[in-house]
């Protein structure tokens, strides 16, 4: 499943980059975060409460920053498991300064969900995954205003 979107910020791309390349600050925007452990500049472990409908439970996720091109590009990989399921999300972020000031953040998230959640809630998973990812970027956009 591929999701994408873009946001405009009054801040410059370097300011946005500085914020979103900091795993601790980015993690604050993960929906339903229960715990967070920063392992290094490029790795964090998180537990989130997630689910669809009545299928709810904890997911243990590992966040890695996979690509850093200052002011222009960032890549994240999220790998996790829970509820008899696995999730892998590959996120790429592109930043661009606007001639009118501020910047644009464009994101693409390639998401793969396997296991019980995927099989039991096949019809709902796409919209739910999109909802969670959008919540995350909405949160970021709020903080960067």
């Amino acid at each position, binding site marked *: 499943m591929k999701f994408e979107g873009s946001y405009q910020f009054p801040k410059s791309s370097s300011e946005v980059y500085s914020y979103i390349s900091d795993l601790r600050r980015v993690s604050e925007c993960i929906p339903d975060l229960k715990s967070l452990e920063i392992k290094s500049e490029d790795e964090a472990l998180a537990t989130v409460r997630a689910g669809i409908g009545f299928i709810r*439970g904890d997911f243990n996720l590992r966040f890695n920053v996979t690509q850093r091109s200052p002011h222009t590009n960032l890549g994240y990989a999220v790998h996790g*498991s*829970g509820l*008899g*399921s*696995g999730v*892998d999300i590959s996120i790429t972020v592109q930043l661009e300064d606007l001639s009118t000031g501020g910047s644009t953040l464009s994101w693409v998230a390639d998401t*793969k*969900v*396997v*296991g*019980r959640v*995927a*099989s*039991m809630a*096949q*019809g709902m998973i796409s919209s739910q995954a999109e909802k969670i990812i959008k919540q995350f970027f909405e949160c970021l956009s709020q903080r960067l205003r």
Partner: protein
Amino acid sequence: MTEVPVIHGMGSAVKRKEDVRFIQGRDTYVDDISLPGMVYLDFVRSPYAHARIRSISTERAKGAPGVVAVITGKDLQPLGLDWIPTLSGDKMMVLPTEKVVFQMQEVVGVVAESRYAAADAVKLVEVDYEPLPVVTDPKKALEEGSPIVREDKRTNHVFHWEAGDREATDRLFEQADVVVGQDMYYQRIHVSYMEPCGCVAYYDSVKGTPTIWMTTQAPHVVRTVASLITKIPENKIRIISPDIGGGFGGKVYVYPGSIVAAVASIVTGRPVKWVNDRSDDHPSTAFARDFHMRAELAAKRDGTLLAFRVKAVSDHGAFFGDANPSKFPFGLFSICTGSYDLKAAFVEVDGAYTNKPQGGIAYRCSFRVTEAVYAIERLVDIMAHRLGIDPAELRLKNFIPPEKFPYRSVMGWVYDSGNYAGALRKAMEKIGYEELRREQEEKRKRGELMGIGISSFTEIVGAGPSHTFDILGIKMFGSAEIRIHPTGKVIARFGTRSQGQGHETTYAQIIAEELGIPIEDITVEEGDTDTAPYGLGTYASRSTPTAGAAAAVASRKIREKAKKIAAHLLEAREEDVVWERGRFYVKGAPAKYKTIQEVAFAAYTNHPPGMEAGLEAVHYYDPPNMTFPFGSYICVVDIDRGTGEAKVRRFVAVDDCGNIINPLIVDGQIHGGLTMGFGTAFMEEIGYDQDGNIYGANFMDYTIPTAVETPKWETDKTVTPSPHHPLGAKGVGESATVGSPAAFVNAVVDALWPLGVTHIDMPLYPWKIRRLLEEKGYALDK
């Protein structure tokens, strides 16, 4: 002269004896069994369809409250139980040590004091997977460069199987005036029994005896295989199959749960219960069908059918576990010439491994007969439409005529008896076929969509004769052991196992018929390997043809001995003693008689000098041939041009299963089978996405018919006895599931044929039909 009691023998529509306890909830299923100190097994299951296992950490689970054992594949390896043989000569993983090969595969077993503790601890097991490329399409699996499911095999190709005469068939196709062909997919479905799989395993370490109560259709086979694998002497292993809530082929298999539970009992010294919940059972136990075929039929312009050929790919999932007779890797698909007098036929099938659970269940079907019947019945209908001949007329023209029986088909089967035209004509008369065709014509003029579908199927059941049929070398006989107590009451034990078929009544009726003893006085037992005679179990409509025949022959052996005792009691010569149901009398003096009960008493108290005491017999029946039940089904559908829904207005089923033992049970079997066929045709399907995620994993997504959707079935019969079966019976458990899907599809395609629709793959979802109507510009939006 005393009155002859009502015995409810052959042909009596007596209510089932076993239902007294079933309807009161007084039955005993595996999950009803509770033993002192029992613990519970649950599984960590793979979220991935294909992944290498980097590591498994069980430490947190082991420390969880109530956990008594955690079992991994590495624990099973030294015992040689990480893989076990399948019934098809392949092997299957019990618990993986290196990689998982389908989603929801059992990975680690967790045993705890309660179900809840086990389920909680399952979440604490950490498995690190490295996802691998997935293949769920069997055709792609057979392509070069496809991900290899079974590295031990180094190929996804399971087998290539052929039957028939390729050259003769091809020749007829070249000479034919008309050839029709169709690609068809018979979707993957689950048997959806009411009771999921489970077991209670208890290893008595003092006696060295494992006892396993399990949901199995073939307990003796399980015992033998278990002994061969574990080297535990077979006499020490006891498999008990208690009441079973439906099997339909799905409980012939032995699943990892039973193996791990048995090991866990040895490890913990306590009884271990494992019972799948629906969401575990549905996606991880074996499946049926999943069969891609290209079928072709050749004919003369006048409608004479000449030859049939099929090229197919069969999806077997990760393990080739079909419970087929050894000589038939693709079951009895070669019955595919069906009810027709063809000149040649040829079929070839390639089996493929994919990242799915094992397939190949003979789901209420005698080893791939359902697929075969579907193929020929669809193609005959397509041919009829292509030639502009009424589908009934084309069938009647090409049926094997009654005078040709016993009939040797071009595939080598010798059909025992049949009157196919008789069954179809009866169905046509009952449904008012000619009138329906006139109505259809009128409706077509008004733009309404009405379809009439016929399926005139021939089954092959009762596996089987020892010269041809075995499973793992064990011949497929039927067994019965009958003992009459001094008071004339009977205990009868069988090597089969009812899963709802009504054996306790049917077998009792056979014995009643043969010995003149009322069925109330006959206790039937099955399913306990310590007490029942060895048998291959119940599946493929084989119980009546094999064990039922054994019951008849064993009863006759008893009658022979009883006659000698009666002669002794009547002080007559044996040849002067005449049997009449329930009593022996002296020829010419019917008032001078002894009842079977009196004879039974004498067998223990006053038997002739030199004769062994007692009155009992055992018989292992080796059928001389298979039996060939048949029938004709006619379905009428009306299609809603707005929603695409195909509503079954009428369905007439005329079955012929030879002589009928209990009409009520036969009718029940047909009703159940038709409903399952209806589910297959209209709503059931297990699918997978590109990552191997299953959809249809439970009853939220996998729809089976309820009383609301199920049409009203109109049943009738013809009776063409089997000439070789001691009772003239043929078996009926699967006829309706086998025969009906083609009737439903034929009806829907018949309705849509004028629009240029030649085929729709099952299930016939309304959205599929609606889409076709849109494509043809025939859909209504209001």
